[in-house]
């Protein structure tokens, strides 16, 4: 690896220590994710546990109509299973997207929200809620419960395309322009969202507020199918972006001299993250925090090497959202808390603790 050969001699042993730590982190992350998924499947307000799974599977297989079997099948296979998978995909996508954005912009605060992707997605979703009963009525009705996710995805994507058109000049993309234009687009989307919130009625306003706090309560197999291609493409493409991201750690020019095709890497990173974040926002609303906290957590533990940062972020992001979702459905059961609130309550103190313990020295991406 190019990066390895660039390590200073006295840093070499520290680097290999960190590398071993990184691998342990990946293995631990994988195990914790499996554990979290099992907990998520066996915990819920109905009190059904994994021991009811055989009954649920049998009901699904034989089409048994006994109420208790139907109940078990519905809760375990139609509610908790898609919810768990959705939570894992959303968490992994947001965390990896965050890690990539921070690497691309060489800015510890970068996340998909910063370049306006989430704001664009949110604007389109809010427009669907606010104008669904009047202006945009016909197509909202035609798309049914898909109107909101489709709009969110579309909004995120359009914002990204506009952003790339603005930032690309003479075949190159200026990172600073990308960042500033993203902030400006985000501000415009935010203002339009505010305007729409003002013209909505009371009921729509409640929907809007709830949506903006994120929730996985509406999880279904259709939503799992909707996010799977985007999340998988993002996750499967990460190995091919590691070299570029590690190169970019040194600076854009340095990466170029290392033989990295910086332009195509930028393009791929932005479009991949935009698609995955758009899909995540579409199925679960806006869930903040994952994209910033998880990659930093990983860097604090295992250092800035993207070979570890990207996969570990995916695993820990998935764990965080799965666990937060279990809390969301249990704390006020049978009611449901928005996951965004839980995320901040769990994530922020853990993050703060780590920052304080490390003497405030955040390792730059």
């Amino acid at each position, binding site marked *: 690896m190019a990066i390895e050969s660039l390590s200073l001699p006295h840093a070499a042993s520290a680097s290999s220590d960190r590398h071993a730590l990184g691998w342990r982190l990946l293995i631990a992350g994988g195990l914790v994710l499996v554990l979290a998924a099992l907990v998520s499947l066996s915990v819920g307000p109905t009190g059904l546990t994994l021991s009811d799974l055989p009954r649920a599977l049998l009901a699904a297989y034989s089409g048994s109509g006994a109420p208790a079997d139907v109940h078990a099948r519905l809760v375990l296979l139609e509610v908790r299973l898609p919810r768990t998978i959705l939570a894992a995909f959303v968490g992994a996508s947001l965390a990896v997207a965050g890690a990539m954005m921070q690497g691309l912009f060489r800015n510890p605060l970068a996340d998909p929200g910063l370049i306006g992707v989430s704001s664009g997605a949110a604007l389109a979703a809010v427009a669907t809620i606010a104008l669904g009963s009047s202006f945009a009525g016909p197509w909202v009705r035609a798309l049914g419960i898909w109107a909101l996710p489709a709009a969110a995805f579309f909004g995120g994507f359009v914002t990204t395309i506009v952003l790339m058109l603005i930032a690309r000049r003479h075949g190159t993309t200026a990172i600073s322009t990308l960042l500033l234009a993203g902030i400006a687009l985000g501000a415009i989307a935010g203002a339009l969202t505010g305007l729409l919130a003002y013209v909505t009625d009371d009921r729509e306003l409640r929907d809007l507020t709830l949506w903006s706090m994120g929730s996985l309560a509406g999880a279904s197999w259709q939503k799992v199918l909707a996010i799977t291609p985007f999340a998988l493409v993002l996750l499967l493409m990460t190995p091919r972006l590691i070299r570029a991201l590690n190169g970019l750690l040194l600076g854009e020019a340095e990466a170029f001299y290392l033989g990295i095709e910086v332009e195509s890497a930028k393009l791929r990173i932005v479009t991949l993250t935009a698609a995955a974040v758009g899909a995540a926002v579409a199925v679960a609303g806006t869930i903040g925090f994952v994209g910033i906290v998880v990659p930093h957590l990983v860097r604090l533990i295992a250092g800035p090497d993207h070979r570890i940062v990207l996969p570990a972020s995916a695993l820990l992001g998935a764990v965080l959202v799965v666990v937060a979702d279990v809390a969301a459905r249990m704390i006020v059961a049978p*009611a449901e808390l928005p996951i965004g609130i839980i995320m901040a309550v769990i994530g922020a103190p853990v993050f703060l603790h780590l920052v304080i313990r490390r003497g405030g020295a955040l390792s730059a991406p």
Partner: protein
Amino acid sequence: MRRLIAGIAALAVVGAGTQVTNGWAAEVVDATGYIVKAEDASRLLSIGGDTTEILYALGYGDQIVAVDTTSQFPPEVSTKRKVGYMRALSTEGVLSTGATLILASAQAGPPEVVKALRASSVPLVLLPDNTGPESLAEKVRLIGRAVGAEAKADELAASLENQLRELANARSRISKPAKAIVVLSVSSGRALVGGRGTTADIMLSLAGATNAAASLNGYKPVSDEALIELAPEAIIAVRRGPDEDTAADIAALPGFKAIGAGDDVPIITMDALYLLGFGPRAPQAASELMAQLYPELPR
């Protein structure tokens, strides 16, 4: 499928929303056109303040096992389990209540959860939206059919319709309708006023007043200057609890002072759930509002 065909046949014979009685197991056509088979009203989940009030009025309060957070009347409802805000339900949370029948306001959501509940073995009856005074009796009759208390529901619905007719009679004696506004709350110096498409609007028209804020859509904050422009002749202050003094908050605003609120323009204080809940107490609330707006009107 057979159930669907049977339901449609029943519909064709006796008209929309009619049940096929069988013991009391009933096939109810709910407000969204779904044919729901209701046969056990021993454990009810009530979603929506108006739904809960109607169930209590029909004597089914004890059978309610859980409600949503908008259900706040009668006071004994506070001891029931809560499944959260009606537009943010969770499938598993709702199923965990062990309800045998779910009665839900048209506003219940999110749509994915309603869809999942439809696929469950628990019957779900969605009620019509509050589009006007006629939806009141409609809701009562539908709930009555679903819980197997049709006779009692008919009685209540008839009494409500009767009260609405009396209101209409009383309205015909009003020579000049008052221009009024309903103020939901006052925050950071602006009043939140009920415009078109709100239950506040329906209640004003029931009480024989015109909504001075009919140009607004939904509940909207109104500035001092806009308030002077609306020029209401009466202000209805909505109080959400015994400790809230919306009337005093209103009287303190400069814009309201300018239009003479509290002096020439009376401020009428009414309880939020009573005035805007649109349950079985709605006609009574409208009549009380009318009495306050037109004290000179013969009763």
